[in-house]
Structure formats: C-alpha cells, structure tokens
C-alpha cells in the first residue's frame, strides 16, 4: 500500500506530546503494521499526559511548531490511575486561555489513542497535518521571537521628548 509521494509547498511541523503507555505504543503499532502517515509529526514521549505542562505547548510554538498534538490514554485507562483526568481539566482550561489570547485553536489537537489504536493514530495525525497545512505556517509566536525589545522602541512621543531633551 505504498502511496505515491505528493509534493506540497508547505510542510507543517507538528509536535506530538504523547504518553508512553498508550499513544506511543499506538504509534508504534501503526509503524509495525506498516501504516502510512505524514512524516510531519515529531513525537515527544512523556510518562503520562498528566506530565505534559501547558508551557511545553507554548515552547513548541515558540520553537517553530505549526501545530501541536497532545495524546494519551482513554479516560479510565491511565497507567497512573488518574493522570489523564487531571490533564483533561488542565487542557480544557488552557484551550480557553489560548483562545482568549488569540491563538487559533484548530492548531492544537487533543486526543485519546490507546495502544491498540494504530489506525486512529494515523487518522488523527493525518487530519491535523492536513488541517494545519491548509492554515499555513503559525507565524504569531515566530514573529514574537524575532522581534526586538519593544520597550526599547523610541516611537513613544513621551520617550522621544525625554530623549531629545537630553
């Protein structure tokens, strides 16, 4: 089932934060079953979704990610009993905050992928990649990283007056 390789103008960078017990094993299953999925995804393995701090998502965007996927065990299947329940609440809150700050939420995807769901992993990754490809590069955080210190700008009339008086 080798698909023909397509050429795209834009290859998004997707960072996937996955839990080692379910989604990582699920991605592994997709690999050993020889399923094809976009190579845009970079998998970062964590012990549990409960370990994934929202600040990691920010960091990923700052370092050039165009989309972020957070994936772990289905509720009730957590290796650490309740890690994913805590993560679920945390990400529900974090989504609302990112929305309020003005980040496009379709770039952040949360999913439950179990160790047996190689097919679902392929589906989730393909969907997110294609969606982010359609959206284009995530420029907001990258622009911030390139911008110089704003408070040093002398375009403020008050500061300009003080500067000229010196």
């Amino acid at each position, binding site marked *: 089932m080798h698909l023909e390789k397509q050429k795209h103008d834009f290859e998004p960078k997707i960072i996937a934060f996955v839990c080692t017990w379910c989604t990582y094993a699920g991605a592994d299953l997709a690999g050993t079953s020889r399923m094809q999925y976009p190579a845009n995804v970079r998998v970062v393995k964590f012990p549990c979704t409960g370990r994934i701090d929202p*600040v*990691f998502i920010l960091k990923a965007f700052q370092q050039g990610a165009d989309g972020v996927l957070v994936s772990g065990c289905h509720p009730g299947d957590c290796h650490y009993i309740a890690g994913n329940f805590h993560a679920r609440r*945390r990400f529900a809150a974090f989504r609302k905050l990112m929305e309020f*700050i*003005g980040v496009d939420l379709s770039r952040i995807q949360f999913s439950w992928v179990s160790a047996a769901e190689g097919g679902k992993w392929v589906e989730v990754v393909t969907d997110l990649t294609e969606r982010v490809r359609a959206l284009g590069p995530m420029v907001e955080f990258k622009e911030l990283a390139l911008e110089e210190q704003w408070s040093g700008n002398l375009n403020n009339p008050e500061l300009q007056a003080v500067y000229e008086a010196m």
Partner: protein
Amino acid sequence: MTQTIDISRYSALTEAIRTEARRILSDGTVSAVIGYTSGRRTGAVQPIVITAADDADKLLFTAACVNNLAVYLTKAKKDVPKRGRIAVVLKGCDLKALVGLIGESQLKREDLYLIGIPCSGVLGSVLKPDQELTTATIASKCCECTDRLPQGCDFVPAVDLPSPVPLEQRYAAEIARLEAMTPSERWEYWKEQFSKCIKCYACRQVCPFCFCEQCLCDRNRPQMVEQSPRPSGNTAWHIMRAMHLAGRCAGCGECERACPMDIPLNLLNRKMAKELKELFGTEAGFEVQDKGPLTSFKEDDDQSFIR
C-alpha cells in the same frame, strides 16, 4: 455620571480594629497584628506589623487600604514573625485569597486570627491616596464584588454596610468586548499589552498564590520561559502566570494594581475564573476547599474537545 460612595463607616471600622488589636495583643491571643497604617503622604496607607498593644492606635482603615495583607503570611515573605498566632486585617477579597492558601496547606486556620472588614470598596489607584471614593475612582475589582461582608472570621466589626451603589461591571464588559473580536484582533490586543511588560515581576511578588520557592520562569535548566523582557518571553510569562493562577486566583486584583506598566492582568484572571466556573462550577469563596478545580477531577468532565 460619577457618584460618591459612602465610606463614612470607615472611621468606625478604624476604631473597632484598634480596640480589637489592643485587646488581642494585651491578653496574648496573638503575637502580632498585620494591618494598615498611615503612610508618609497625606492619605497614603501602608502595611504594618505591630507586636505591642500600645501600637494599636497606629492601625486604620480607609479607602486607600488597597493591599492584600494575606501575602505577608505566605512562605515567600519572611519578615513576619512565625511564632504564635498572627492576626491579620482582611477585606472580603483578601479573605478569599487567604482561604485559598489554607486550602493549599500553606497556612493553618488555628494559627491565624482573622479580622474581617465589611468593605464598601477601595480606590483603584493610590497615586492620589487622599482622593474621594467615587464610582469613577473605585477599583475595578470592587465593581464586581459580591462578597463585601467577610464570613468565617474571628472578629468582624459590627458595622452595617450602606446599600451598594450600582457600578459598571468593568471586567465583564471588557471580556465581552474581547470575546467578540476575531482571534487575530485579540492577538494584536494582547501583543500590545504584553509589549509594555518590563519583567519586573511585581505581579508575582504581590500575589498571595505565587509562593513557589523557585518560580518556573527563574529556572534555566531547562529554560521554559525566556527571561529577558522581550516579546516572546513576555507573552510566555503572562500566559504561564494566568495558567498557574487558573482556579486559584481569588480576584484581589493586586497584580493589576502593582503593575507599573498598567497591563490588564486581572482581566486574564477574571476570564479564567469565568471559564472555570462554566466548565467545572467552581469559584473562589469563603469556604476552605481541599482541592481546587485543576487539582481534582470528575470522571464525567466535558471532553467534547478531545478526539
């Protein structure tokens, strides 16, 4: 139209605080009282820790008593004596912060003697501390205050509050205005706001809930938040701050007051409080709760956003 807010009860409150402080200090109930005293400028107020009954007359309560004194009880502030019971003067919003700290096992209720203040509101800015308290000069947090009478305190002066003046809901209006914008407009708004940040961390210092021995943003192995006052680091810091306070913030608004660059920090906190109330039905109150909304869970929490 600006309208004067009746604070004539504040002089009776001052008397009651002084009498109570004198009593509890002289009979040895407490070893210290944290309260407000007059500052150097006319009308200015500053926090004070008194340990002698004779100093009780230094205490007062006016509309310029903006500080949240609960911050002096956290382990981040080491200048308050840790021996014996400590009395602290608290407005409703400050009490909610203190209750949050008790819930997070930072303080023990039996080590504290709480003096609650039935509060009609305080000034939004103390640049002119002697100005009159009106519907224009009142702090934004007081406009949306629903808990003017503290509950569960050891002592609340018996002063009846005047009926509240209707006030414009500033945060609710601003949140609604921002929510109606497109994501890119909101991003532009926050970009401009965060651009003012000079990373002085006054918001962190003044926050009762920022008691971590080492803040995540001070760590550099690994460095999660850029430390220099540059755009990306500022944005990351403010997002992280809002996230760490989500479900904990009591709405005392000290971050916004302390900010020298006038960044609307409490707006982020209010938005998160609103969202968490909608999502999980929890909000800061006078009841001590063992677990906050983000440290607990229900098996049937909403997961419609998860695939």
